[in-house]
């Protein structure tokens, strides 16, 4: 591992029960976990459950974490991904419902901005949700979570070449989906 793991020092402080370190870890990782799980599951409540369970694992692991092969952030993605997989297996990819879409609204936007952004956001929500699961994982890990291609491929247990193939198909499907008039789109699931 060439670059030092940016989370190591924080983990050590958590291991010493420093309250400020606990808060810093929550500030640092909670948004990432919520973003990952929200985009993979399309359900804000389930995303919160995944984040909460992931933090239980963090607290257990913090004191005994040793710098090794994987970065802590990569390990954390592995944990959260597995929790997401469990949920996806249970519900067999049910589509996003209106409640979930409303829950994902960004409270930072003013009401008129929310209205303006709603159409675009709803289309993107639907487009991401319509992607086959592995393509969605690839685009979420590489694009939104900003993991390196090597990290994303390792998490998905595939080669970098296979990751690139999934990413290309995901982006092609998204372009096709978003190019269609609203209501006519139903692509993606069949285009694996």
């Amino acid at each position, binding site marked *: 591992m060439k670059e030092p793991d940016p989370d190591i020092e924080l983990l050590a402080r958590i291991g010493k*029960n420093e*309250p400020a370190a606990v808060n810093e870890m929550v500030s640092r990782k*909670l*948004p990432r976990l919520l973003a990952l799980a*929200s985009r993979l599951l399309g359900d804000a409540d389930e995303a919160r459950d995944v984040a909460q369970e992931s933090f239980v694992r963090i607290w257990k692991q913090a004191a005994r974490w040793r710098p090794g092969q994987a970065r802590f952030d990569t390990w954390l993605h592995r944990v959260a991904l597995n929790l997401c997989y469990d949920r996806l297996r249970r519900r067999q990819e049910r589509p996003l419902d209106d409640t979930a879409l409303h829950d994902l609204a960004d409270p930072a936007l003013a009401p008129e901005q929310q209205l303006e952004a709603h159409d675009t956001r709803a289309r993107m929500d639907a487009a991401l949700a319509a992607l086959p699961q592995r393509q969605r994982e690839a685009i979420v890990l590489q694009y939104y979570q900003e993991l390196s*291609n090597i990290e994303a491929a390792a998490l998905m247990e595939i080669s970098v070449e296979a990751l690139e193939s999934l990413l290309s198909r995901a982006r092609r499907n998204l372009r096709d989906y*978003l190019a269609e008039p609203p209501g006519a789109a139903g692509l993606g699931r069949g285009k694996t």
Partner: protein
Amino acid sequence: MTPERFEHLADAYGADLRRWPAAEQVAARALLASRNARALAAVAQAGHLDALLDSHRVAAADPAFARRIAASAPSASFWRSHWNWWSRLGWVGVGVAGIAAGMLVASLSLPLGSGAEALPSIFDQNDADIVFTLNAEDSEQ
């Protein structure tokens, strides 16, 4: 780098070369600098989808939820996990009960000084320390 390779990578990783494999970035920049038409077209097409992807926002972390997660951290779990052990020591339980009863009697026998503000808030420090209003997207960018 050939234009074909550039198109392949833009198709997978998008228009921002910083997201591309590190080993390919220098050659990709060189091809772009040469104003290669296919490379420029690939970047333009990928950039359009990137903009749409960037428009997808997720909910910001709710401060109350963040506080609950922080409260589940080691210090709290330590006492929970050790509670049974402490409980087995009967004399400790009796001692604590005795002290608590003594404090209750003492507090009931004294008037409260200045109302509710005289009571220390165990939440004040958490509220001050935790910045949990981060927008999820801000932390990703």
